């Protein structure tokens, strides 16, 4: 849009970009795509001096040499989108490493302002900063911020406002040492008459031609491949190392020099408390105690809060049918429509929301503490046994919320093999919808032990399936993962995040659920269920030994898993779960099958989009097969 300014937030992972974004969005006019995962671009429009400014929060990158999928997303955005200003979020507590990216962004040469974030954190770590010196050396605005507490944000917005109106014409060119600089200038000379539609200066691409040729626009490389090759070979001969290493050395030293000139370190005698706690959390033996406690508290809180909220919601939702029940004999179609709406609301607000709310709130809090990466570290050995590594733990934990953001979360894994394997195992993790099915039946029929049994089987199934699949997928690659410093989460930020996700859920899921339930209620009216039941009878009745009437519920479950319970109730014409004419053991077999069978519609679509039809096809066949086998074995054991 021509009339709108575009700002891109760029920084290394855990530099606090998303926190800055969240605080900025507080003065928003519109927020969308609030997925909560930092592997996707979050967008927001904010108001700066009466002008609408669009902000894109790009996934964190260590450098502009895209390695994993999230880094590719950021690099593509920087190259291809119109950007008026880059806000480079720099982690002040790790100044030198963060400034390496800043040096690269200066090479890229778009208007830029630095948000020197986490200044309080840096001081806590014993780093004294001189932002004004950095500003003077780089000749670009440097705004100290502490986004978690909202400090410096006003100044940052003002600086952005000024830079958007009075365009920053020039950025400093930071020269490399003699040999490298000469090589860069020679390549730049080759590129000088080539116009590219992509963002990024000729100097940036000249450096990239030596460092990461894959990102240089083809029109530049095409006409100078041989010259570049010769220059690279010369440089490698002179420095006795790969050209990319020479470049990274140069940036490393530039950044260290900048750090030395603009900050100093105060040596401290004692180990800070957070560091002492962290050593315990990461301890190869003792670390598992807080890990187990974490899982118990996490799922325990969700279970107890969920059941409480569910019973509260039921008081109101169960009264709704009283309003229209009288219509059933006289206007059956209208009654079915209203009943569909009621079931949709019951599914969303009565069954899913009570568990969804505590889950996303706790996830928001724990995401901010940095504990998730500690879980990944501790679980790495176990994950290796199923052919994955620790990084898959984060999508798995997100998967307990919803498989869809978890699938996007897979992007943080660098290797295709692990990405695909994680994606194929993700649909087996019980999401909120399935958690609510498991917990609701546990509360009504099977008891807490039933729920634990289902979870234990699911973990076993994931382990066996992962191990089996990994045998066909070659050797796993190794783990490299940052363990960000422990932080005290901000309640305000967590509440905000929870609120946006709830709103998102209520806006989309409720509409979908209500429309779906109306459609299904009509199908029931048209007596299609009997046909669907017969279609699934071989699986449901002959194979799993369950009542034929459950067959049609599986179709509804494809669209939204939580509908399975609502539809089971209506299939048997009962008002409560406990009234369903099934034994406890039959219920367990059915719930296990429902938990594992087929990815839901949204998962199906996103998986197709992210991984292609091959992965979707394998995942679909796999999940039906695994679900049937697991439920059959459970039937043999129980019934």
């Amino acid at each position, binding site marked *: 849009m021509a009339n709108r300014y575009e700002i891109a937030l760029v920084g290394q992972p855990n530099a606090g970009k998303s926190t800055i974004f969240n605080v900025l969005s507080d003065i928003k006019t519109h927020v969308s795509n609030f997925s909560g995962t930092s592997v996707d671009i979050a967008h927001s429009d904010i108001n700066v001096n009466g002008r609408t400014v669009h902000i894109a929060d790009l996934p964190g990158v260590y450098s502009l040499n895209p*390695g994993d999928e999230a880094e590719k997303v950021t690099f593509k955005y920087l190259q291809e989108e119109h950007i008026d200003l880059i806000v480079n979020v720099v982690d002040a507590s790790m100044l030198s490493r963060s400034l390496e990216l800043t040096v690269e962004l200066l090479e890229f040469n778009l208007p830029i302002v630095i948000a020197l974030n986490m200044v309080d954190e840096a001081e806590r*770590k014993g780093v004294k900063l001189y932002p004004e010196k950095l500003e003077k050396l780089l000749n670009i605005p440097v705004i100290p911020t502490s986004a978690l507490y909202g400090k410096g944000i006003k100044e940052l917005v003002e600086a952005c406002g000024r830079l958007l109106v009075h365009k920053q014409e020039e950025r400093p060119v930071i020269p490399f040492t003699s040999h490298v600089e000469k090589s860069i200038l020679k390549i730049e000379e080759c590129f000088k008459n080539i116009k590219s539609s992509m963002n990024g200066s000729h100097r940036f691409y000249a450096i990239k031609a030596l460092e990461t040729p894959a990102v240089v626009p083809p029109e530049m490389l095409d006409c100078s491949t041989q010259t570049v090759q010769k220059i690279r070979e010369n440089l490698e001969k002179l420095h006795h190392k790969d050209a*990319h290493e020479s470049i990274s050395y140069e940036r490393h030293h530039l950044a260290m020099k900048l750090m030395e000139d603009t900050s100093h370190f105060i040596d401290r005698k004692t180990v800070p408390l957070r560091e002492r706690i962290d050593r315990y959390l990461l301890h190869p033996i003792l670390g598992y105690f807080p890990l187990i406690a974490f899982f118990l508290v996490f799922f325990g809180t969700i279970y107890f809060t969920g059941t409480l909220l569910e019973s509260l919601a039921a008081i109101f939702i169960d009264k709704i049918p009283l309003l229209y029940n009288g219509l059933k004999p006289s206007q059956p179609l209208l009654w079915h429509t209203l009943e569909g709406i009621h079931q949709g609301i019951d599914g969303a607000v009565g069954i899913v929301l009570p568990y969804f709310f505590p889950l996303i709130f706790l996830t928001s809090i724990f995401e901010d503490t940095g504990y998730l990466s500690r879980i990944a570290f501790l679980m790495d050995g176990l994950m290796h046994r199923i052919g994955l590594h620790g990084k898959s733990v984060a999508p798995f934990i997100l998967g307990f919320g919803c498989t869809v953001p978890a699938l996007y979360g897979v992007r943080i894994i660098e290797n295709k093999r692990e990405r695909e394997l994680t994606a194929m195992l993700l649909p087996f993790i019980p999401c909120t919808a399935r958690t609510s099915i498991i917990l609701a039946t546990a509360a009504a029929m099977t008891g807490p032990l039933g729920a634990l049994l289902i979870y234990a089987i699911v973990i076993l199934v994931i382990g066996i399936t992962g191990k089996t699949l990994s045998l066909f997928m070659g050797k796993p690659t190794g*783990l490299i993962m940052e363990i960000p410093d422990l932080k005290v989460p901000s309640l305000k930020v967590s509440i905000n995040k929870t609120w946006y996700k709830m709103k998102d859920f209520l806006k989309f899921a409720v509409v979908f659920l209500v429309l779906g339930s109306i459609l299904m209620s009509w199908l029931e009216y048209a007596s299609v269920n009997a046909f669907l039941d017969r279609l699934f009878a071989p699986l449901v009745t002959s194979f799993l030994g369950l009542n034929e009437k459950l067959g049609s519920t599986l179709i509804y479950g494809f669209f939204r898993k939580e509908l399975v319970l609502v539809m089971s109730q209506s299939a048997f014409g009962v008002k409560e779960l406990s009234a369903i004419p099934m034994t406890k053991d039959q219920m367990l077999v059915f719930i296990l099958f429902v938990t594992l069978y087929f990815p839901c519609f949204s998962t199906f679509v996103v998986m197709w989009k992210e991984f292609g039809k091959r992965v979707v096809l394998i995942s679909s066949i796999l999940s039906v097969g695994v679900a049937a086998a697991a439920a059959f074995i459970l039937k043999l054991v129980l019934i």
Partner: protein
Amino acid sequence: MVHINLVEAPADTELEVLEINANEAIKKRLISMGIHPGDNVIKYTTAPWGPLLVKNTTLNSSKIAICRALASAIQIGYNNGKPV
């Protein structure tokens, strides 16, 4: 002065990263995350299982978890408990 790989290196001792013997992609990733040849690091892990925990003390960066296979490709040097 001792030249060994990171897996064999002693824990809680300051070590210097000498060289990374890995492919370009892994080298770039390790370097960009702070495992930079020429810098000093400390290894925290003492357990003979699980990934290693390493912190760049030159940059005072956060900890990095590296699996054993990759860590064995990182050559380090140290001298009487001091980096070279």
